[in-house]
């Protein structure tokens, strides 16, 4: 990945980030829209979780990774500490792979 690609990605990302804080003064966001933005955030993040857990390239990522993420889901719903959630996910996936599950 060339440096130029990283710089373009960084500049574009920063542009997305800075638009809200700079436009705030001239733009009032109604309550309804703010609630919609909150819901939209949750939708995007869950979609990112689902695709990164299940998909590799254009196909299925195999069983080991989604199994690890499923363990993370159970722990997260039970309000386990964040580091425990991450370590349990990686450990489950690693253990399954060690047993020969892709």
């Amino acid at each position, binding site marked *: 990945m060339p440096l130029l690609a990283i710089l373009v990605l960084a500049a574009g990302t920063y542009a997305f980030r800075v638009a809200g804080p700079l436009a705030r003064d001239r733009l009032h966001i109604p309550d309804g829209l703010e609630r919609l933005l909150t819901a939209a955030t949750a*939708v*995007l993040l869950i979609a990112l979780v689902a695709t990164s857990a299940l998909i590799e390239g*254009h196909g299925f990522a195999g069983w080991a990774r989604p199994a690890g993420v499923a363990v993370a889901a159970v722990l997260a719903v039970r309000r386990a500490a*964040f580091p425990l959630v991450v370590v349990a996910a*990686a450990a489950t996936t690693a253990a399954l792979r060690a047993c020969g599950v892709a």
Partner: protein
Amino acid sequence: MRSLWRTSDRGTLRDIALVCLADALVGASFGAIAVAGGLPAWVPISMSVLVFAGGAQFAALAVVLSGGGALAAVATGLVLNSRLLLFGFAVSDVLDGRRRTRLLGAHLVMDEALAFTMRHQDRARRRAAFWTCGIALFACWNISVVLGAMAGEAIGDTDALGLDAAFPAVLLALVVPALRDPRTRTAALTGAAIAVAATPFLPPGLPVLLALTGLVVPHLLRKTA
């Protein structure tokens, strides 16, 4: 900085520390996966400092490691980061100071900082949560990516350690509290199903944006009920 500590309650500080630890594991995974995949160490390190968005970094890395071009990697990262436009508006009330502060704070707009800011109604507490989480995570994330990149060559096979499961896991832990609201939950689960179903047919990055169509489902259900 001291006033930030005073305004943040202990529970929030503890949670932020735990998220930092979790993200440090994810950041180390990112550095290790990139270097083990054959990229020079400066690629994951400069990406982490300049782009500073875990989701886009992992997505762009996946495109590059699976043989895609730099243009596809940039496009994927940008599509994924377009959500930061929404986040920027959602936290813009805490970035209301001098222009320089706003420009600096904007770089810290991300999933975790938004999640912590959203927990509070009071403006001073929102501001404290945003800056504390933002600064702490920026430091932890970048240090851990450097350490991961250094360890990457020694580790070799990062999949054997299950490191690829670390990123979705931490994202899930962050978003679970928002799913207690039934309408958000319906929208999120529908959106996720749509994104996964669309993945074989669309270029990387787009399926996640398509998930937003899930937002209309709770409205449709309410009308037919």
